């Protein structure tokens, strides 16, 4: 699936009511593993199981949530997840973008621009994440993308990850919480 530039604009800030906000804020982790997990989670939120299921369905359909379920860490399964970047000349943008996105190993791809450095002749402006099932797959994917585009790919593997809180509190406007 490919999203175009319009995706940024049309990912409109959702209107969420107080219960939607509570669900999103409370359920970003720690979903129970038990016979009736939605009932257990709903009880903590003070709503019914049916309501939680219906709300989650609606939040997914409205694309407020991109997923509901386990978040896997591919590195622990022998695979690799590596950030990489390219400096793509403006005139060549469409061709390179199509070539890079065609690789199934490219999980996310963002155009980025520097806010503080306007002086660089060839800024790294295309940033993507390579996800492969084996560690060796990263170097292979980098070589294939370089061959397909004729441009160097700079991999930025994580050497260390620092602990971060995993929660973003809902900021969207909506009914008073």
């Amino acid at each position: 699936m490919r999203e175009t530039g319009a995706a940024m604009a049309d990912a409109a800030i959702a209107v969420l009511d107080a219960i939607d906000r509570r669900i999103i804020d409370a359920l970003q982790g720690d979903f129970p593993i038990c016979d009736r997990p939605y009932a257990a989670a709903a009880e903590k939120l003070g709503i019914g199981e049916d309501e939680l299921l219906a709300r989650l369905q609606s939040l997914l359909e409205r694309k407020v949530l991109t997923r509901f379920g386990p978040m896997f860490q591919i590195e622990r399964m022998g695979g690799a997840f590596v950030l990489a970047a390219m400096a793509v000349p403006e005139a060549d943008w469409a061709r390179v973008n199509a070539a890079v996105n065609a690789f199934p190993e490219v999980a996310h791809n963002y155009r980025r621009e520097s806010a503080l450095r306007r002086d660089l002749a060839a800024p790294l402006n295309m940033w993507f994440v390579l996800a492969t099932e084996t560690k060796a797959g990263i170097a292979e994917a980098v070589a294939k993308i370089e061959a397909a585009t004729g441009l160097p790919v700079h991999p930025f593997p994580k050497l260390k990850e620092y602990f971060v809180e995993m929660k973003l509190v809902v900021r969207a406007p909506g009914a008073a919480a």
Partner: protein
Amino acid sequence: MTAADDLDRRLILATQAGLPLVPQPYHTLAEQLGCTAEEVMTRLSAMLARGTIRRIGAVPNHYAIGYTANGMSVWDVPDECIDELGAQVGALAFVTHAYHRPRALPDWPYNLFAMVHGASREEVLAKVDEIRGGLGAACRCHDVLFSTEILKKTGLRIAG
């Protein structure tokens, strides 16, 4: 690949798009996979415990919940104190990811990456200034890259 690994793998394939939205999702998965619900729950708990699963829950679309600006702040700090500084930056509430990554000299001197989310570019830049202040003289140079377009977003998918 052992049979045990195979069940984990099939469980990953069955849940990577999401958990079934039914009262007993682990029972539904067990039926699909031809094992018991207890086995599904045991496997999921074990994968959580060893970090194969980071967490189970809602993955919000940042834009839809009001974080319309996301800035990748990048910092050149001395390698000898990067772990201490990385932990300090990662502890800030508005930083959602913080990593030590290799430099790509000469054009890319930065070794510390921190994602900063906010409701506007101004807010993100103000937060970046806060990080700058906290790093003090350890910061030799820095930049912030804003995403201006999502070119592709399929997320992680392993092949069936």
